[in-house]
């Protein structure tokens, strides 16, 4: 019998059996409700975050512009927040955002870490940040597909219908692909409402990069195909539906729960990230160990250098305020220390990421999570990019304030007060989303890992199919 017509017959029959099994239908309904609840929760979270962010920016701006006359350096300490917007696709996959700060306090002499982690605002101890469309598709849907699909081939063998099917004209070689198509159809019918609702909510939440969204949906389509392929291969290779279900649930426990957590623990052990307190203390210690270039022994050399630059022989003849220049020099000195410390931190994150990637050998969920977060703009790389952009903005703003000090303070020095026009000229922080190309470059190893898993699933399917043909029933 042709595989296409075999698929139509089998898929129709399997769908009918699925619909008439109240346990499976109940499970599917519960998962669908859970998924829709996840989308609604994510929608509420992203909307609330954006409303809070916009309100905070407006209030912060009003306070900044309303500070009256003040010394620019004093204003540099008064300062304001750089707030990270949540990408619309964070609604699909919040990634690390519940655990990552979304606000950086910008001030002179100091690069502050991001604060205001959403998990700190939760009234309960539950990590609701992970309750999302991605979580349902990564963790719950695989279990549902495994439970539904475990018996699709094994049960036919077990109850004797496989013999009758083959005797009726079904080809053993076409059976496995037809069963895969049937399970794929059930999985698609279960996943489509969730995917549709999630994508629609994401599109309504803001400007989405269409290519990123399409790729995200495509990767999840591959994920479901992979799950269906593994399920059918196991079902065809094992003798009974019970054995297949037991093995698949074991695989789910390993791939969805054990490996990602153990991998994260291992990565943390191999490349430990310093706690925020120790990190800040280490930076302060380095700053103290190497004083600003205009202090101590370097003071005279600094002044001589400034006088030479402005071609004067006395400090009093300088056309600018040297304290403003000292502040800038202090910033340069501090920035070098910050850059070293943060580069070290980013290197540690990169080591953790590499260590975590190796666990993709044991679980396809790991590369899927990496790809999903990256495309949604919610992975560690996006968080570091936000912090880098915030830091660049801080340096720009502090330099603008110092420049005003240098050019206008004159002999008044720290008694000089700038007008509110200066505050108005300081731009707001605007986060620029990362372009898609470098994001894709970064996830190529994860995409390859997913492709390798898909290849393995195809090999298993071919083996299962050949075995069915060779060994019969």
């Amino acid at each position, binding site marked *: 019998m042709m595989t296409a017509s075999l698929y139509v*017959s089998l898929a129709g*029959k399997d769908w009918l059996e699925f619909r008439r*099994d109240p346990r499976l239908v109940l499970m599917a309904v519960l998962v669908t409700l859970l998924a829709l609840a996840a989308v609604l929760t994510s929608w509420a979270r992203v909307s609330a975050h954006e409303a809070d962010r916009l309100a905070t920016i407006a209030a912060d701006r009003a306070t900044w512009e309303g500070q009256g006359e003040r010394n620019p350096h004093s204003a540099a300490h008064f300062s304001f927040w750089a707030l990270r917007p949540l990408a619309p696709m964070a609604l699909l996959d919040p990634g690390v955002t519940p655990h990552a700060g979304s606000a950086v306090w910008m001030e002179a002499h100091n690069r502050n870490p991001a604060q205001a982690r959403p998990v700190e605002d939760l009234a309960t101890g539950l990590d609701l940040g992970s309750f999302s469309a991605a979580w349902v598709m990564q963790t719950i849907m695989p279990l549902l597909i495994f439970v539904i699909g475990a018996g699709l081939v094994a049960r036919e063998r077990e109850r*004797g*219908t496989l013999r*009758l099917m083959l005797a*009726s004209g079904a080809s053993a070689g076409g059976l496995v692909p037809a069963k895969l198509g049937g399970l794929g159809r059930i999985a698609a019918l279960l996943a489509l409402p969730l995917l549709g609702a999630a994508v629609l909510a994401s599109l309504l939440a803001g400007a989405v990069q269409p290519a990123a969204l399409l790729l995200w949906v495509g990767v999840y389509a591959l994920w479901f195909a992979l799950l269906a392929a593994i399920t059918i291969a196991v079902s065809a290779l094992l003798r009974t539906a019970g054995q297949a279900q037991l093995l698949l649930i074991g695989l789910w426990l390993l791939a969805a729960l054990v490996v990602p957590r153990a991998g994260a623990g291992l990565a943390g052990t191999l490349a430990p990230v310093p706690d925020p307190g120790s990190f800040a203390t280490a930076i302060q210690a380095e700053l103290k160990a190497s004083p600003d270039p205009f202090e101590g022994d370097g003071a005279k050399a600094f002044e001589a250098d400034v006088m030479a630059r402005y071609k004067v022989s006395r400090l009093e003849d300088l056309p600018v305020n040297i304290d403003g220049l000292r502040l800038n020099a202090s910033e340069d000195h501090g920035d070098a220390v910050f850059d070293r410390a943060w580069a070290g931190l980013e290197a540690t994150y990169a080591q953790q990421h590499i260590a975590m990637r190796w666990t993709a050998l044991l679980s396809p969920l790991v590369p899927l999570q990496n790809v999903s977060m990256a495309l949604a703009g919610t992975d560690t790389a996006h968080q570091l990019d936000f912090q880098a952009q915030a830091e660049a903005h801080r340096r720009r703003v502090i330099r603008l304030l110092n420049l005003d000090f240098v050019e206008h303070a004159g002999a008044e020095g720290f008694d000089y007060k700038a007008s509110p026009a200066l505050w108005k000229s300081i731009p707001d922080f605007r986060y620029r989303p990362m372009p898609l190309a470098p994001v894709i470059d970064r996830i190529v190893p994860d995409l390859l890992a997913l492709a390798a898993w898909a290849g393995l699933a195809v090999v298993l399917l071919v083996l299962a199919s050949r075995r069915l043909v060779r060994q*019969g029933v």
Partner: protein
Amino acid sequence: MTVLEARDLTKLYGDHLALDRLNIAVAAGETLCLLGANGAGKTTTLNLFLGFTAPTSGQALVSGHDVAADPAAARAALGYVAEVVSLYPSLSGAENLAFFAQLAGQAPRATQRDAILDRLRFPASAIARPAGDYSKGMRQKLGLAIALMKGAKAILLDEPLSGLDPAAANDLVAVLRETAAGGTALLVSTHDIFRAKDVATRIGIMRHGRLVDTVDPGALSGPELESLYLTHMAERAA
């Protein structure tokens, strides 16, 4: 016209000789019952005709098609009724029939289905009920209906009367006779001597994977057939 034919058909499972150079031929309208104890090679013979297992040597032919060389063509002419007909319990009888008809490449037609079910004396009211509720006799009839809807030239039946109550067994015997009379070749495996006599046009007695005798059931009374069978079995014991 010969529909089923075995030519020196032999099957070895490891060192165990399950079937030893079997030569049989079943023509259209004929019913050959293979009679024998467990392990005599009856089910192995059916499996070889169905292509569920490959012969060690020899050939199984269905409508001239070598099963091992072209199992799809052979199966297209075959129907199969297992000892316990396996159906999908949550699907109705009609849905089961439609599904297996589709697998056979047939477009299921209600008129054809109803005519077959009527011929098999399958209760019309039961066809819409879930197959999980069917008695064994009803399942056997539905299995036969699946084979007939397919238009099978030959039907292989594995212990079809086993476990049926006397009334249901008589009913099924009558149905099988009518089916054969309609031009279908039947190959029936059984260990029930008296039912074999009722249904067969020829009886083959099997022992240790070998066909040891072929008898005309019309030429022997029931007790004579039983005596002959026991003689062959005694030879085995000896």
